[in-house]
């Protein structure tokens, strides 16, 4: 991802940081939990923080800022929101 696109993506992160939600569905894939989360105003699809052992439908979570994974060689180190069990 080139820098300007990353800049736009990160500006969106600030708006949702700190919100709480509930897990609608989740799956463990490529060493990460991935969760579809219901917030007050919308749903979001996010990874869980790295050391999450187990996630289940109905778990309460909050959105926190974390370091992202590189998804392709050309992506820079990036930050994204992840879900953390409350």
């Amino acid at each position, binding site marked *: 991802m080139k820098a300007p696109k990353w800049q736009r993506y990160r500006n969106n992160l600030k708006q949702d*940081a700190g919100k709480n939600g509930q897990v609608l569905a989740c799956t463990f894939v490529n060493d990460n939990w991935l969760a579809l989360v219901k917030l007050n105003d919308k749903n979001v699809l996010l990874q869980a923080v790295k050391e999450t052992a187990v996630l289940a439908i109905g778990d309460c979570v909050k959105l*926190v800022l974390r370091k992202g994974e590189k998804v392709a060689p050309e992506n820079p180190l990036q930050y994204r929101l992840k879900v953390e069990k409350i």
Partner: protein
Amino acid sequence: MCMAGITAYSVYIPVNGRSADEDSFTMVVAAIDKLNDLPDVEAVYFGSESHPYKIKSTAAMVADWFNWGPKVMAADLEFACKSGTTALQMMMGMVDSDMVANGLIVGADVAQARAGDALAKTVGSGAAAFFIGKENVIADLVATVSFCTDTADFWRHQDEEAPRHAGRFTGEPGYFRHTIGAFEELQKKTGFKTEEIDYFVFHQPNATFSGRVAHKLGIDLAKIEAASVFDKMGNAYSATVLVALAQVLDVAQAGAKIVMVSYGSGAGADAFLIECK
């Protein structure tokens, strides 16, 4: 006497050790997120030995994340474990001179040690954030002084992933010489008497150094208790001494006097006289 003071503070220590997706930036955000009503910050100085980028300011990222810019000063600092307190010294000057009304200083680090090194047993991670200003001060930053030499007790070259250290050499010529040196300079500058001070906060790179330097300085060991953090968090480098200060501020009553002396390898120590309001 400096007119700047601490107006708010917060710390973040990862509960079960650092998660693989945390770094010094995300930990500072986590610390500051605990506070309500953030002041209008005009300068951010970020002290760390583990900035996410070699070139790209972590301080600027923090300022941007909390929407304090674009009219904001920002810079990253490094001086081993004392980079956070050095940031504090600089901010004292900025605020005292009215160059800025409110500033943020941060000491934050993720653990770094060579695999298999003895150091790996003592390292931890954490972040401490202090807001500095002249209004609504909870503790006055009365005075500060440093003691600094070129001493190779702990270093990491640009191209290396993990730091090296000089074993026992980090003791006498490193930690003790500089901590005691800064303590004595502060005493000369401000005239404080050891018995008048209620709390002493020393850097804690391991379980014993803080106690040993207190003993050498003739300090009542009960007065370093409140600042004891090593057992809880290990040595989180730039965060350690500031987390210890936060812990003391949590319990100190109005009028309490605190002397804090940080230590950074390479080497230097920053000493502060702080009075709680």
